[in-house]
């Protein structure tokens, strides 16, 4: 598979095949989803010992669970005996996962096992297996690396994968802006109970490259803007944003989004918001004041976007996380989580919840139109003739510059640019080529590397 013929970063185009072709999709499962850091869930979903929550990594079902020592684990949800889907509930509480088929039992209890997910109960182990089964080798497959980042749980199957911090790079600053408390405390957020899950017949790369900052598609939301769900009343779908909002991307990492040009905390403007709901408006104003106070002297980093490959988040309106699980070349299963300050008053939570649900998810008046567009674009790219014509990502091509204020990022001073789609596609190609982690993290020189197209230096 000649990946370079599929994605032409220098010219800002990509073949439609990558959005519809099964062979490419299957390679994505191997090269991307079996290697990248993936979002699994939130610690609040396994708040108590022995709580579990069943999630997905790519097409695979996984169990997120908290053991009796309060450690969180990510386990492949398939019995090592004959493949049975081990845990068949969406959530619950147990420390012993017993397989319905032949009752192999896997434990997460640290008193019993060295490695969580270890195979402990094998009926007839002595009599029928003659104690010869190597139980240690047949425990549940564990994620090779797992991280709890401010409550969000991430994992990768690849023991060689870069550390989560290195993998995130500067994008971490923006993720913080979603996960930190509105009052400026580190962390302090949680997800509302209830994850919206739904299927849509679009390739998973549409949402990934849409949420990375596709400001040009704002026009497709004109209907919700006209109908008006502005939380301060009137038309539009959001409160007015502060100035200095632009697209930033991390070309070496594949992340990107829209965010605010970093500035000193004190200089970051804070306009009133949620004025239809005074209790929310007041809460947010109070938290903003605390934030400014707590972080004064520091730099204000704030943004939303996509963390390569398939997790997108929004730091504000609506403050959410969405995961685009691949489900075949032309289907995506979305999982949407709603973020909230853990200790916000109930009424504030309720109003925010209502606004978020009105905006996002399959019933969200904004997201509905996105879902329709991604589906229609996927379907219209299947035709035997249409397939031959590449997609165009030339908006702002060659106008990117390094942004010194945001480590590792490039920008071109605008929100409206396709720089970030190219950032993401470049990373996609690097994974798909099968680069190893030394190459992926640029610890070694790479032959024929494709540079990100930057603005030509003016000759003084």
């Amino acid at each position, binding site marked *: 598979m000649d990946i370079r013929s599929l994605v032409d970063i220098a010219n800002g185009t990509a073949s439609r095949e990558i959005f519809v072709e099964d062979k490419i999709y299957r390679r994505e499962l191997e090269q991307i989803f079996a290697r990248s850091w993936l979002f699994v869930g939130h610690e609040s979903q396994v708040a108590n010992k022995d709580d579990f929550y069943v999630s997905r990594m790519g097409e695979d079902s996984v169990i997120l669970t908290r053991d009796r020592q309060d450690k969180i684990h990510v386990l492949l949800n398939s019995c090592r005996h004959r493949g049975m889907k081990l845990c068949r*509930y*969406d959530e619950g509480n147990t420390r012993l996962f017993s397989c319905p088929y032949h009752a192999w039992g896997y434990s997460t209890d640290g008193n019993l096992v060295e490695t969580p997910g270890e195979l402990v109960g094998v009926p007839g182990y002595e009599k029928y297996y003659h104690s010869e089964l190597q139980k240690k080798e047949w425990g549940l497959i564990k994620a090779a690396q797992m991280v709890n980042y401010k409550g969000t749980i991430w994992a990768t199957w690849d023991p060689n994968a870069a550390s989560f911090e290195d993998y995130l790079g500067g994008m971490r600053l923006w993720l913080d802006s979603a996960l930190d408390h509105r009052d400026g405390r580190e962390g302090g957020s949680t997800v509302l109970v209830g994850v919206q899950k*739904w299927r849509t017949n679009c390739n998973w790369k549409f949402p990934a490259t849409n949420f990375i900052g596709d400001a040009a598609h704002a026009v497709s939301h004109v209907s919700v803007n006209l*109908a008006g769900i502005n939380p301060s009343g009137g038309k539009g779908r959001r409160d007015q944003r502060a100035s200095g909002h632009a697209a930033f991307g991390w070309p070496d990492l594949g992340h990107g989004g829209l965010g605010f040009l970093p500035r000193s905390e004190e200089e970051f403007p804070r306009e009133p918001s949620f004025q239809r709901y005074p209790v929310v408006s007041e809460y947010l104003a109070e938290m903003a004041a605390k934030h400014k106070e707590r972080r004064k002297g520091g730099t204000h980093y704030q943004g939303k976007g996509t963390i390569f490959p398939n997790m997108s988040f929004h730091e504000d309106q609506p403050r959410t996380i969405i995961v685009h699980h691949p489900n075949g070349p032309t289907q995506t299963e979305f999982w949407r989580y709603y973020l909230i300050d853990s200790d916000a008053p109930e009424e504030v939570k*309720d109003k925010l919840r209502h606004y978020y649900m009105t905006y996002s*998810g*399959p019933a969200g008046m904004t997201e509905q139109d996105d879902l329709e567009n991604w589906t229609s674009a996927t379907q219209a790219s299947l035709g035997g003739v249409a397939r031959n014509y590449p997609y165009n990502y030339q908006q702002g091509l060659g106008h990117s510059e390094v942004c010194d204020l945001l480590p590792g990022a490039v920008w071109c001073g605008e929100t409206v640019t396709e720089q970030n789609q190219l950032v993401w596609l470049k990373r996609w190609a690097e994974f798909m080529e099968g680069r190893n982690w030394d190459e992926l993290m640029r610890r070694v020189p790479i032959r024929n590397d494709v540079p990100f197209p930057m603005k030509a230096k003016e000759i003084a």
Partner: protein
Amino acid sequence: MKRENAVALRSEIADFMSLEAELVDTRRFEEWLGLFSEDLHYRMPMARNLAHQGIRAGVEYLSEPLDVSWFDEGKETLKTRVAQIRTGVHWAEEPLSRTAHLVTNIRIVDLDGLPDDPTEIQVNSKFLVYRNRNADEEDTLIGRREDHLRRVGGSWQIFRRTVYICQTVLLARNLSFLV
């Protein structure tokens, strides 16, 4: 309630439910909105797969006030949804879906215990909502509904609707149609 009143009330309510479905399927959305009270509470909770203990405990559907739902809103939001469709540029509904709301098993709860001329009733029903749009896209939502109706003059208004769909992972691309 006397038997003959019960018969008449069931007949009347079935007629009301049929009318409601007809208004929405024939895109008379504004008239449809008129069948809901201003203090409407409209909720479609999400279901989870739980062990039998959870089912017994009645927590299969996430119904706490702060739980995320498919829908949890009042009449104003419903009106906004209609307004969005009416813009003509709401791509999820442009071209408009063709829907059919099949409402069956309409049952007035505790009919015997009601006075002869009740002012509020609970009506349970099952539904199948079919949506067809574009060339070949089909979605079907099936489940049950609990409606609370209030007599207003000579007619009825729905002031609470709770919709329980059977799916946990929604197998429709979106919920841009009205249920």
